[in-house]
């Protein structure tokens, strides 16, 4: 099952976990399953159906905005990382 990596400051909303297994064959499905397991994470990641402006999502090492956003395919062994966008510069 794909694994989702949780940013450290959000772990309290994810049962203290740093990685969570979530089912799905696209980024959208995987994040939806994550949201079912941890509703507090879902409301932080999404504004309605859209990922919030300052949330970046990667599949393995690629930003999903360069792939197919929420429709990006995710394999069984892939890692989906949630990374806060407001860093650097």
């Amino acid at each position, binding site marked *: 099952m794909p694994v989702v990596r949780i940013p450290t400051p959000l772990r309290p909303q994810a049962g203290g976990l740093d990685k969570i297994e979530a089912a799905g064959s696209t980024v959208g499905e995987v994040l939806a399953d994550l949201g079912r397991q941890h509703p507090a994470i879902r409301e*932080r990641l999404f504004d309605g159906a859209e990922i919030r402006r300052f949330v970046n999502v990667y599949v393995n090492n690629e*930003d999903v905005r360069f792939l197919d956003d929420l429709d990006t395919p995710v394999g069984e062994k892939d890692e989906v990382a949630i990374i806060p966008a407001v860093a650097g510069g």
Partner: protein
Amino acid sequence: MTGLKCRLCGKLYGKDEALNFCTDDFGPLEVAYDYDAVARVFSRQTVAARPRTMWRYRELLPVDGEPTVGVHVGCTPLIRADRLAKALGVAELYLKNDAVNHPSLSFKDRVVAVALSKAVEMGFQTVGCASTGNLAGSVAANAAAAGLDAYVLIPEGLEQGKVLGATIYGAKVVAVRGNYDHVNRLCSQIAFRYGWGFVNVNLRPFYAEGSKSMGYEIAEDLGWRAPDHVVAPMAGGSLIGKLHKAFHELDRLGMLEAPVRTRMFGAQAAGCNPISNTVKTGARKVKPVRDPDTIAKSLAIGDPADGWFASQLIQETGGWSEDVSDDAIIDGMRLLAETEGIWAETAGGVTLAVAKKLIEEGRIDRDGSTVLCITGNGLKTQEALLERIPQPVVIKPSLEEFEALVEQGDEVFDHARLATA
């Protein structure tokens, strides 16, 4: 400062939180101040009585006690650039020259002075950064002077001057196979995992405030006026917003001669233009650039954290944004050097070339006052010029050879360039 505040939802956080984003909506955290309290103790007279460093504006910077790192940073020259003004066809032009900032020759010393003073206050012993080059040198130098351990992460393939300018200070420099955005993402994970103070990750709200000092200095040196136009280079897009915030804070405190009407202009390279592209297309979102490709490596951030805010600010103030080719960047560097005797890094060439373009397009009024922000030093980006500027003409130590050379006229110096190009 009173604490940190989410720019989206307004949620408040403590003033000693090493956190860059709101845990409710991932919005950026920004330092909040009690401006009424500041106004009671801070005035033009307070500023004038203090040494010429960025810390003369300390009430508007997020450090509680005495600053401990970067105490000599700032108050770089604001130069009236009449020869360049004539070349560009404008009446009143100034250069804010952070190419000679202390100690590491870029504007990054401002942000690092604040971030590392804060890091010391918070008790961090290990600090770090994700850098396109200038920040690497500044974190390394200032951390060394403060006795802190530093991890500096950079993309592979940076200019030698930038790499050496970090390693010389004993920092642990790590080159990452990838571009700056890869480095940045990795640092977001490292900072929280190890609990270190990464200046542009978990210390970013404090760090970013340091850029305001450039704006305070510009206004003070213009006789407590905000200029009509500012042209600033954009990488992550933070500086341009902080310059504007600085003018507004001074205005709010009653320290300016006239209300702020500054129009903000952002400069990028054509090979990495996510913010200027957003402005020019009026897009609702900043479209990141996957593979930045420009000689202005210090501006090569494809996914700028403050890109959205920068594009909004530019539009709200009636400014504009442009991007320029590598050849135009080189021409900009040369024009600045040949008219004003200032050797800026490639980002300075971007700023100058964009200013020229905006003036020609009529976006910048020729009769207004314009400040160009020069943020880094040309000594650090020599590779960009090696193949593109004249080599010395070589002669024997003979008066006859020199006389023959002078008789050939000035062209011989340009031919020397063509021979190597």
